[in-house]
């Protein structure tokens, strides 16, 4: 489904992502871990189109992604939950989530100006999808609040709902659990498992290694922009390079 080949991106001569090759199969839940600055977010941004690669290629469902602009990648079924909040200021929680359905709807300014019947039907459909997505992340009671008035944990969930409103085929999650409390983490983890169970392909970046180990079918480990390991959670856990570069303390903590 997603196939990345020899992908590189540098900032000011320093490689953030270097010669990365990665395959994510249909319905897979792919974990990506690695220390701070390893290039995880850069890789996500390359897939969703926020930045362009220096070299290499990205194939998604048979299409070459590199030359496709971000909004068209969304229409192909790629959604991203950013590491920061990145909500739309001045809009309510519900409106934020409704924007997420842009990628699966059509109507334009002209139809809206005249309130054509097809536009009104679509508007109704968008609202229903957004309400359902909000219910899924447990934010129904917050629908009419200004999005930027929410605490950080809730803002992250708004982002997840926004991504879900577009019914993505590929969901990119960049540290969705950071800044969440334990109970919120459990809910999020359950939701991700559920989405995976429904057949959604997911790429999950997390510093919460226990969570990734539990959820992911395969895990890639990035360090200094390069893939240093790629395999099942068990394989990665016992890989000496991974333990040296990143896991060391984290795994021993998770097992004690």
């Amino acid at each position, binding site marked *: 489904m997603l196939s990345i080949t020899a992908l590189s991106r540098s900032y000011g001569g320093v490689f953030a992502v270097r010669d990365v090759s990665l395959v994510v199969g249909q319905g897979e839940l792919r974990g990506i871990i690695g220390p701070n600055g390893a290039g995880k977010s850069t890789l996500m941004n390359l897939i969703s189109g926020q930045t362009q690669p220096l070299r290499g290629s990205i194939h998604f469902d048979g299409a070459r992604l590199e030359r496709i602009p971000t909004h068209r990648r969304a229409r192909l079924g790629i959604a991203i939950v950013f590491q920061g909040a*990145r909500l739309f200021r001045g809009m309510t929680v519900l409106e934020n989530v409704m924007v997420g359905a842009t990628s699966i709807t059509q109507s334009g300014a002209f139809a*809206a100006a005249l309130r054509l019947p097809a536009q009104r039907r679509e508007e109704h459909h968008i609202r229903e999808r957004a309400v359902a997505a909000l219910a899924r992340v447990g934010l129904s009671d917050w629908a009419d609040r200004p999005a930027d008035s929410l605490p950080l944990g809730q803002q992250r969930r708004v982002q997840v709902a926004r991504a879900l409103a577009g019914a993505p085929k590929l969901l990119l999650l960049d540290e969705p659990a950071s800044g969440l409390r334990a109970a919120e983490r459990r809910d999020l983890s359950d939701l991700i498992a559920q989405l995976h169970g429904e057949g959604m392909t997911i790429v999950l970046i997390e510093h919460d290694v226990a969570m990734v180990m539990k959820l992911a079918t395969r895990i890639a480990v990035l360090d200094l922009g390069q893939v240093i390991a790629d395999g099942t959670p068990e394989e990665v856990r016992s890989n000496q390079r991974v333990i040296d570069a990143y896991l060391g303390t984290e795994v021993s903590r998770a097992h004690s």
Partner: protein
Amino acid sequence: MNPSMKRAIPTAVVALIAILIPLFLNDKTVYVQTVLSAVVVVGLSLFMGYAGQASLGQGAFVAVGALTVAVSTVSFNVPPLIALIAAPVTSAGLAYVLGLPLLRLRGHYLAFGTLAVLLLVGALMGGVPILGGGAGIVGIPSLGIGSLVVTGQLFFAYLALAVLAVTMVVSRNVISSRFGRGVRAVAGSESAAASSGVPVLRTKLAVFALAGGCAGLVGGITAFFIPYVSAESFPPSMSFTYVIMAVIGGLGTLWGGVVGAVVVSVLVQALNTISNIPGTPPIVGLILQYAAYAIILILFLLYMPRGLWPTVGDAVKRRLAKRVKRSQTDYSDQHA
């Protein structure tokens, strides 16, 4: 009475007052100009307030709309009604084409870019013969179809009002739609908007063209109203007036645009009256106007940065909410 009808009452009252005012005015020029500038400002508010962009060049699109009418009717004998329709189309088209390079700029750079367009259009109007070249274009025919010709200020007053009403309704419909949410999303986070499927540049272009179209229509109507088009009758300073109207009324609200246009027009009229007192040199009026702009702009940015409409509106809402709460507590006290 259902809530949506209740909410329509203030709008209906405002509309009624707006309809009645011109009947009591001998000279309706200021009224027509105020209502028309409100149309420009509502368009500008879509672009600046909702899409989060900046334009110091709206006056250029007004001038282009006026030129479209003047040149096409006087030099090419185009029927007035066709010329009037061509005005917003030309301005919107020009905005779109200029937007292609300009809207890749952000913030101050975009403001300077639109300012350059404004100065360029002004220079062309002042220098190119077919565009009036200094002398201006006279002899614009009256608005009408065939032999049926309308004249008189009252017609223009109601034409302007009708255009404002349609602009408001269309803008409201657009803002609360899929497209409009995309516009507001672009103002919030371009990267998140794009990855939700919003075509960022195309959305900005569409709003810029829409705002340009509003300005062009106003220019076209003005050309028939005055009826004379020259560089002096569309001075670049009007562009700043539009921005000031939008900021004072409240960016990101449609009614704010109308409130801003009315407040600033009344203020300018008051200053004109002062400077028309016999014995004052003619330059005083202009100096007073610019000084007033500077002072109110600074005061608003310091003390009411959101503008009149949102600030006053929220205060009223809070008042009402408090009163409802109080009556509810009274009720529970009695029944406790």
